[in-house]
């Protein structure tokens, strides 16, 4: 278990906070850590900042993540990692497609040539909108409270995909499944960062598996070609117990 100290806790929105900490560790965009909140559990978190000062951006959705958002400067941060493969970050014009909290793990890819499509259910749940200049961002909300009124994959259909060298996608699986349908067969390089129930983080417990691949170790980043034809992507998820449940995405 690695023991770091929180340097700063910055509120991003009502229930989203970014925690900054010093950690002398090479991490690739898209890699993640298992963050341990003693007494509350351990959760996978991707990194939102990878400079000398690292950061994670946490949305409070359960007791562990809520406790995490409440950490103050000087508090202990316990984690193990980094884990996973990370993105293959290409040169040239890039598009990030982030649904909900998905934009967090994509953000470290961003450079001067990167546009971002950020989607959320509603305006208040948009994350990192202000980190992109208006000229470089596309906003979509399910309820139309900001930007395009509709889903990410619908807005994506209105964007000139061919102008990008690479597209990186992260978000809820149903959103990514639909984005995949839009991008399938296009000649652009596309990678998806997946999220599944995760326990061990190191490729042995089989909780996060997807058609035989472990999201925590062989992922979380997969090329579009690896997901097309995957028998579980967008089709099944497994519960914390390992029970198979059919998704109603299609």
């Amino acid at each position, binding site marked *: 278990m690695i*023991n770091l100290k929180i340097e700063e806790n910055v509120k991003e929105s009502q229930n989203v906070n970014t925690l900054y900490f010093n950690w002398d560790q090479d991490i690739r965009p898209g890699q993640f850590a298992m963050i341990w909140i003693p007494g509350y559990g351990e959760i996978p978190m991707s990194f939102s900042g990878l400079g000398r000062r690292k950061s994670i951006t946490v949305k409070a959705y359960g007791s562990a993540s809520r406790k995490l958002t409440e950490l103050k400067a000087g508090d202990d941060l316990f984690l193990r990692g980094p884990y996973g493969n990370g993105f293959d970050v290409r040169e040239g014009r890039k598009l990030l497609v982030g649904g909900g909290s998905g934009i967090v793990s994509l953000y470290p890819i961003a450079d001067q040539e990167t546009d971002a499509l950020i989607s959320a259910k509603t305006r208040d749940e948009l994350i990192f909108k202000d980190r992109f200049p208006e000229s470089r961002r596309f906003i979509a909300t399910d309820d139309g409270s900001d930007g395009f009124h509709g889903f990410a994959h619908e807005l994506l259909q209105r964007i000139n995909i061919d102008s990008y060298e690479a597209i990186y996608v992260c978000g809820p699986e149903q959103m990514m499944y639909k984005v995949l349908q839009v991008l399938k067969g296009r000649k652009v390089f596309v990678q998806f960062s997946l999220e599944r129930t995760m326990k061990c983080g190191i*490729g042995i*417990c089989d909780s996060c598996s997807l058609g035989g691949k472990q999201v925590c170790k062989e992922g979380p980043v997969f090329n579009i070609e690896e997901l097309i034809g995957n028998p579980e992507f967008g089709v099944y998820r497994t519960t914390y117990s390992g029970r198979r449940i059919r998704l109603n995405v299609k």
Partner: protein
Amino acid sequence: MSDISTTLAGIKLVNPFMVASGILDENGYTMKELLERGAAAVVTKSIGISERDGYPTPVIVEYGDSLINAVGLSNPGIENFGEEINIAKEAKRPIIGSVFAYNAEEFTKLSVKMEEYGVDAIELNLSCPHVKGFGLEVGSDPDLVEDIVNEIKSKVKVPVFAKLSPNVSNIIEIAKAAEKADAYVLINTVKAMAIDIYSRSPVLSNLYGGLSGPAIKPVGIRYVYEVKKETGKEIIGVGGISNYKDAIEYIMAGASAVQIGTALYKYGKGIFREMEWQLRTFMDEERFEKIEEMVGVAIKR
């Protein structure tokens, strides 16, 4: 060229390397993948009567190349597991169904169901907490073990493997209690704990966990040797096997086949193919024609 295929309790294996229970064996697609990547057989995650979440996270502590885990027998329940076995069977290699329970009746019910699902053998996980408490396991009670094994053997036709716990004073007593089993699996994890000194707390949500990996290899070798020498029965060796040398050490101690688990964490799924050619090279150089010739050769009489 040496032949690395072998037979265990009548089950043909293309090599002596299986996937150990509890590692990458809950999802049918994962089991299929491991078989396609070279594993001769997989043992499924231990399945119980009902769906069970197991323990909350953290469920694992990394300790060098070894692990301490307390997943807590998380499983979808026997009724939901047939589909996973069906998927895994597409790889056309043996599937061994692991089951856990607290008494002979439940064990038998699970084993019968596994047989219906078409598994090639049953593995009994005897590490459940004993109703007596005190941190004791089912597998430390010879009378209970004997009941369980005898009852199952009277109800199923496929071979039954008893996975014995190392957390006992007298392994021979337990092995003899399980003597109707077709083979022993040795060893299960060693009870252990890790404390984080900065949070001043045990790391695992369950506090205690099971130690696996290189740390326990010398313990596993000891048990395989001792039990093989005393009982002569077929044994599947497991505990800290990370490479072909470890596997051969287990085989020479008396194992007819071995299981790989924790090593997948460090070495990935390529380990099976790699161990296959390394084992073949070793056997060629050391003039062993068949696996059987190596089984128990280190045992001193």
